[in-house]
């Protein structure tokens, strides 16, 4: 078999090209840090990579959502605390009206205090975060509580919520946000439940009386405060059929109101604890997913760099040999 210069050079050329092309692939891997740069680099990992990326986006969203939810829950909790404080203050005022001897002027002054507490309660009930009412259900842009223009102590009917001193204009829908796949938490408390003592299922709207009223163990905080003021004003200590139903009765109702708020507060607290747990869990899921994604698409830099230096040596050797070939020729001997 004869060996021609043509064949020799074409073999060298092919080898040099091959090494250069492999070197280029490795250099791309090294500079991007990714082993998956084109679909053809490894078609089998495309599905897992895209899936992992999707889950990372989702998990990131859940973590962000939970952060915002926690903030909202903390604000709500602060407001719930001040509601309980207000109710405590009202109790103290009522207690002062019962204890000791009070003149009519003293009683009026105490009743005024309670009325002011009711005003503050209204403000708290209508509090907003980011221009959205906290206690209006899903009607976040509607002021939830307004004074009932038709209220009169004479026509007040505990069974008919439209005769109560304050009207609720929100709705009975709790906002649920997703904090994990198929796992939602309630982020708000509805005004009807918190302030009026009307379960969400019994709420029928502002202008329709709520069903099954009054509910046992629940009170309308605004009615209680109005009645307390009326009872103190009249100095009615324990006449159940007198004005305000009697101060002692009102004190009991104020305690029920505080319990009502406390119950919902601990419910919210539990939700907040769930959110904190899930946040931690999601953060570790996020880390795992990043690792998984990395395993699929990241280049192993140690391997890449050692491969590059190997190939560079091979390239150097191939170039050396190519230059040696041209030195050996029959022409040197003629």
């Amino acid at each position, binding site marked *: 078999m004869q060996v021609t210069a043509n064949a020799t050079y074409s*073999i060298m050329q092919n080898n040099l090209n091959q090494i250069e092309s492999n070197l280029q692939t490795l250099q791309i891997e090294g500079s991007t840090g990714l082993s998956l740069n*084109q679909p053809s680099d490894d078609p089998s990992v495309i599905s897992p990579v895209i899936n992992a990326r*999707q889950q990372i986006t989702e998990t990131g969203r859940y973590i962000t959502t939970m952060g915002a939810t926690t903030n909202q829950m903390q604000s709500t909790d602060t407001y719930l605390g001040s509601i309980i404080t207000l109710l405590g203050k009202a109790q103290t005022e009522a207690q002062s009206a019962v204890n000791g001897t009070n003149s009519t002027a003293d009683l009026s002054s105490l009743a005024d205090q309670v009325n002011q507490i009711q005003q503050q309660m209204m403000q708290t009930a209508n509090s907003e975060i980011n221009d959205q009412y906290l206690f209006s259900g*899903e009607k976040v842009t509607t002021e939830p509580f307004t004074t009932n223009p038709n209220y009169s102590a004479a026509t007040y009917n505990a069974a008919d919520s439209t005769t109560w001193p304050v009207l609720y204009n929100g709705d009975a829908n709790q906002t649920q946000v997703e904090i994990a796949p198929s796992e939602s938490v309630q982020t708000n408390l509805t005004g009807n439940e918190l302030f009026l003592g009307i379960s969400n299922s019994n709420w029928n709207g502002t202008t329709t009386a709520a069903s099954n009223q009054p509910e046992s163990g629940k009170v309308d905080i605004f009615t209680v405060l109005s009645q307390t003021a009326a009872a103190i004003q009249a100095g009615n200590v324990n006449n159940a059929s007198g004005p305000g139903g009697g101060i002692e009765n009102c004190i009991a109702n104020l305690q029920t109101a505080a319990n009502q708020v406390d119950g919902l507060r601990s419910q919210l607290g539990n939700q907040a604890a769930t959110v904190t747990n899930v946040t931690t869990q999601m953060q570790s899921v996020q880390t795992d997913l990043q690792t998984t994604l990395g395993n699929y698409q990241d280049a192993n830099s140690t391997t890449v760099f050692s491969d590059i230096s190997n190939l560079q040596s091979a390239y150097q050797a191939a170039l050396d040999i190519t230059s040696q070939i041209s030195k050996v020729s*029959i022409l040197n001997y003629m």
Partner: protein
Amino acid sequence: MSGLTAAINAGATSLDVDQTTIEVIGNNISNMNTTGYSQQNVQLSSYPSLTMGSFFIGQGVQVQDIQRAHDGFVTNQLQNASVGLGYANAQTDPLTQLEGVFNVTDNNIATNTDNFFDAWQQLSTDPSDLTLRSAVIQQGQNLARSFNTAAGSLDTITGNINNDITSDIPQLNSDISQIAALNQQIYSTGANGQSDNAALDQRDQLAQSLSQSLGVSTYLDNNGMMAVQLPGGLPLVQGTTAMTLQEVTNGSNVSLQLNSAGVVRNLSDSDFGGSIQGLLDVRDQTIPTALNNLNTLAYQISTQVNTQQAAGGGLDNSTGVDFFNAPASSANAAANMTVTLTDPNKVAAGAAPTGTTTVAPGDNTNALTIGNLGNSYLINGTDTFDSYYANITATIGLATSQNSLAVTGSQDAVTQLKNMQSSISGVSLQDQMVDMIQYQQAFQASAKFLSTVDEMMNTLSTAITT
């Protein structure tokens, strides 16, 4: 006397032959880098001997023929291997372009889909926020645009392939007609008992090039003329007659026809091999499949989102409003995908109002449902939008990586065969140099012989005159 004269003649033939051989060696060296050139060898034979009494005395040497070093078997194998190389090589460019369309970077249709459904999830945390509502529309527009771009790029790649095919045709026709012309030339030379080596080399070279581009097979007929056929059996060259290929534009696609002496025949993809078949396969199979899947994906996203968006209610209590323009079918769904919803208030984050109720601004139920569409197995019940995209991309990736293997494999095969051919037909410098020395010395010897005979004749004539 006749002895010395005959010796002069015999010596003179040697000088002629040596010069011719040196000429051939010179030609070989000159062509050592010419593609397709076969090393030529001088075939020598001695002149018929004359009877001198009871002896036969030779009359010198003559060049019987100048032959090229050639192995038909290797040449045929090289032709066959070229078909595979042409097929694989032609697909590399369009497949690489396809990989760009269905990429796996952080910015592709799947990530845009993720971002779109993520915007809905984000909206669910604050459904009355107009900024978040606008963000949903913007992400929808991004998604639609990425579909439009992908569909447009597929069209561009198809167009590029059509251009490639069209621009190849004149060269192919020229090669085909050259083979027919060379057939004529080789036949005429052969009729005089000579071989037209340069023409034979050139014809082999053209046949190999046609194998690579069209996948043709060739054989020699009784007259030594090369017949060229398409893989489907249709003749391109018969004797000295050449057919021509012509293109017809068919909508946006180019198809090919064979014109044989005025009779026009339509050619299908299966009539070809080599690079033309490689290009046609990508154009008529890979790209339509990818486009089809892309359209299905766009159609499914559009319809599923529209259905759920229409089922919910906007801030302005609107219901039944489409988000994307509603595609009638999956045909062209990717190219035509746009967001028709422009008013952020109409983004249906909440449940549809029933009776006299209105949509509460804080109602996020529908946003959550739409946000979760991205996770649902909505395509054939087996694929999410993302996994469907991943499948399309993996198919392209697989085709490209197979192509890359095929290119390397067929390139290796062709290189090996070329080396084998080179070891048979190529010009070896050292052989030529050694031959050159050999014939140079033969020339010196013949010259010395002639001068010796001349001296002998001089001696003889001096003896006669004295």
